[in-house]
């Protein structure tokens, strides 16, 4: 309101001013309503997850769900310990990050500290394209090429066709552009004066990149990694296609394993009847997944804000 009254004339009683002010107010309200759609989306997600998850926890104890080590929701005797799904999720996420962090940070340092504007213009579309490849394509690539050709033929590994290792490595390439672009933004935001100071003291480019720019951009780099991890935790199709569908609490990356997302999709694929416990497991596991990624996203948002405050 304050904004409007300062921009419309108040003195002269020009014909139509009141009407115009009313329509300006109406537009403002309409725009606010549109902005509220995103708030309603979050509300809708929370309500849809919570409603059925509460029903689930009426049947299954929260302690049994969170700390149980046996996941067998369909085959009797049923058991609803979610740890095998969580373990699979974090194991594959860990593999993906082992690939994505060095590749992403290396690319980011190159783009921000070494590349000229022309190289940057050529390299960035490549990273954007890599980020734009549908994850179903990555999943297919993992089972028709990466596992049989690279892991088995080239590296001579002995593993299942569906395994955590292949899904994790391929997922690393999916996550890598996120880490590269967010941390490059952070490094580019470091003021040139810091670099010039380092060069002035005789530091080489390597030293400047690693000991001045990298620490100065650290909060943005942390944000990029946490955001990348969140994307890996939430990725469905690569694991659904390439990691197999066995709920096993194991650290053997050559074995197939379920993740939270691939379990949800596998149940969702069949037409499950509303109200059954299987239907409710979708929402219980979904609620856990949402909670985990929410925490990661909020950490990442906070770190991004931190470097923006310092340098912009």
């Amino acid at each position, binding site marked *: 309101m304050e904004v409007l009254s300062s921009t419309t004339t108040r003195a002269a009683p020009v014909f139509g001013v009141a009407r115009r002010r009313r329509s300006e107010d109406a537009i403002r309200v309409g725009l606010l309503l549109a902005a509220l759609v995103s*708030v309603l989306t979050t509300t809708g997600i929370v309500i849809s997850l919570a409603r059925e998850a509460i029903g689930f926890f009426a049947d299954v104890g929260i302690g049994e769900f969170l700390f149980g080590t046996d996941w067998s929701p369909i085959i009797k005797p049923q058991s609803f310990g979610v740890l095998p799904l969580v373990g699979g999720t974090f194991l594959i996420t860990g593999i993906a990050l082992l690939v994505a962090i060095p590749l992403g940070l290396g690319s980011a340092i190159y783009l921000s500290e070494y590349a000229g504007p022309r190289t940057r213009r050529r390299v960035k579309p*490549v990273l954007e394209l890599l980020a734009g490849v549908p994850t179903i394509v990555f999943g297919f690539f993992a089972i028709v090429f990466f596992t049989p050709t690279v892991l088995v033929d080239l590296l001579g590994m002995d593993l299942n066709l569906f395994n955590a290792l292949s899904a994790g490595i391929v997922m690393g390439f999916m996550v890598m552009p996120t880490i590269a672009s967010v941390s490059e933004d952070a490094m580019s935001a470091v003021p040139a004066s810091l670099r010039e100071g380092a060069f002035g003291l005789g530091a*080489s480019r390597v030293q400047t990149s690693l000991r001045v720019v990298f620490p100065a951009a650290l909060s943005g780099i942390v944000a990029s990694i946490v955001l990348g991890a969140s994307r890996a935790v939430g990725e469905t199709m690569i694991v659904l296609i390439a990691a197999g569908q066995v709920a096993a609490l194991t650290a053997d990356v050559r074995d197939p394993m379920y993740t939270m997302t691939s379990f949800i999709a596998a149940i969702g694929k069949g037409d499950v009847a509303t109200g059954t416990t299987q239907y409710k497991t979708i*929402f219980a596991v979904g609620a856990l997944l949402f909670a985990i990624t929410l925490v990661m996203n909020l950490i990442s948002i906070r770190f991004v804000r931190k470097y923006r405050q310092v340098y912009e």
Partner: protein
Amino acid sequence: MSATIGAPRRSARLRGTAFKVLLLSCIGISAAMLGTLLIKMGVEGVGQISPSFITDYASFVADKAGIRAALLGTLWLMAVCAAFIIPVGVATAVYLEEYADDSRWWNRAIEVNIQNLAAVPSIVYGILGLAFLVRGPFGVGQVVLAGGLTLGLLVLPVVIITGREAIRAVPPSIREGSMALGATQWQTIWRQVLPAAIPGIATGLILALSRAIGETAPLIMVGAATFVAFDPSLNSTFTALPIQIFDWISRPSNSVNDYASLAAGGIVVLMILLLAMNAVAIWLRNRYEQKW
């Protein structure tokens, strides 16, 4: 050894070169992975591409199977998605950039909320679509409308975030000039700010749609069918390209039915659509990018 003070020693220079090579190889490995992926899909799939592959319906006989219903389903989904995200996304971006007072907590909450939504797993949107659009309060069933809206909610943050950047890039002097000539705030936005921001907004829109077109997991949740032998419409059951591809990937191939090649063929079509969209986005950005 060296005459000038502070000139890098040989070992230091060597280390510098090694570091640069290391950094370059990070980009190189990623680019090589992308290249291998594109070539592998092309080689496997290009043999499938024929007029009948595009115009035939799904079939259990691999030789007769086509993507007609899937392609039309995807186009329908994109139309619904665009019809939803253009007005809502642009209006939200305008509100947050031009009206919202950042010192109010609710405006900051809307911002953080959108940033978080951008990183919520796509399958969670699928659960939302399943619980609210397919079965729950709105209960429209497993139809194109539900699928398109689910995808729309999923990519809405992309439109909002890129739209805001485009609007923010319009310099304040344009707004001040317009207001000084007596235009109201909305007239300024509608006639000056939005036209100047359109290339950026359109780029974000295309990027959002190119993300939506390849999404599979949410469509699995809202119950996209895998075998559709009719042309879909707004309120019919449907399939889509990624769903059709996923169905082919899931089937074991044998000497009679080579589903893996069909999947690769579908992927080639999907990637061509994606590359075309990305090319348009990059062209738009380069053609109309304005330095104020």
